[in-house]
């Protein structure tokens, strides 16, 4: 999987070239990223398959919103396995997802100059 880089033109095209909305989205992502990661941990620890599926789905949406096609594909693959009730390797996949989210957070933080 390639390192994440912010594909600003693609995201902005989806947002109708609205920089203001993009800035707001980045801000919200940075606010929520820790909560999203810990929600994944909690669902995993509780062996709550449907809860985990929902959290992975949410993360998939977030990654797609920031035009991370590789990350979204990874989340989609995990989501598909969870739908089948396949929890094997879920822990490793979750760790990978969390790492990806953190990586994106760092990039976004750089964007806003923080």
């Amino acid at each position, binding site marked *: 999987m390639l390192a994440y880089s912010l594909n600003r033109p693609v995201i902005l095209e989806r947002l109708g070239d*609205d920089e203001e909305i993009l800035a707001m989205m980045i801000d919200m992502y940075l606010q929520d990223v820790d909560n999203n990661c810990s929600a994944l941990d909690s669902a995993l620890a509780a062996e709550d398959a449907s809860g985990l599926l929902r959290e992975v789905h*949410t993360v998939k*949406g977030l990654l797609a919103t920031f035009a991370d096609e590789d990350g979204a594909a990874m989340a989609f693959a995990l989501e598909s396995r969870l739908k089948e009730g396949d929890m094997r390797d879920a822990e490793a996949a979750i760790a990978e997802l969390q790492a990806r989210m953190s990586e994106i957070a760092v990039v976004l933080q750089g964007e806003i100059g923080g």
Partner: protein
Amino acid sequence: MHSVLIIDDSEINLTLIKALVQKLGGCDPVLFADPLRALEWCKDNVPDLVIVDYMMPVMDGLQFITAFRALHGRNEIPLLMVTASDQKDVRYDALIGGANDFLNKPIDRAEFSARTRNMLSLRTAQKHLANRAVHLEAEVAARTADIRDREKELIFRISRAAEFRDPETGAHIQRMAHYSQIIARNLGLDERQQRLILEAAPMHDVGKIGIPDGILLKAGKLTTDEFEIMKKHARLGYELLAGSRSEIISAGAEIALTHHEKYDGTGYPNQVAGSAIPIFGRIVSVADVFDALTSERPYKKAWSLEDAVAFLEDGRGKRFDPLCVDAFLAGWDEVVEKRQRFQDVVVPLL
């Protein structure tokens, strides 16, 4: 201002959709992260558009749509469901369950604006149609009331036409109609029947139009032959009014025909007795006789109220239906009030 309900458990999506809705202009976004709370809100509020995410805890988008559509009057509200493009099966279920269209995730502003605008146009058209329906309903009610008013006016004029040839006055007609209404009420007839007899009773003597002046206006006592001719006014009135599609005129026909029948079967024109005489006829008989007795006429003085009441009581079960006499006397205070209100003065011509 369109009220746009947005339900998504993800704060970032809520914020994004809210921002996009605000950019549309003319929209007031209402946000809920919890679909159950959104549903509660929907019980008292009617949104113009609903945008709901599919994947949510406790209640997913499909369950929300089902519950929302089940609320009274929410069946036609446009609804968009937000789904990832890989959720084809969910989309089919949502369409069957009542979603109007979809929004793809990640949300694309151009697609979002086009689809939400379409949905809001649909809503505007719905409201326009509903307003038009309400307007038309009010219009029909107004026209119907207008027709009914004209019908009443026509009836009043027919009754007055008979009056011009009759020594009885307009005030007599008013009084006996109100007495009839009092009896109807005290007999327990419903309000609609009470109003009907009030409006129809004035036509009771309309058949006098067909009685020659020499008999109708005769100051002295009528001969037997003359009285036989006079009696024809009941049937003449019936023939004049019968067969109408108007409920009031039909009731007037029945009253005209039966108000001279007597409870013991010795009246005219058909000598029917007891409950075979229609109730309106039995009621009007009491009201008409009481007012005739207590009014001054060219050939007689007015009776005292006491004498007139004694006449009614004496006629219980003979001339009059005893229940109608009781119902009349039970409303005595009101009878006196109506008698004072409708005095024999010259009624201006219409």
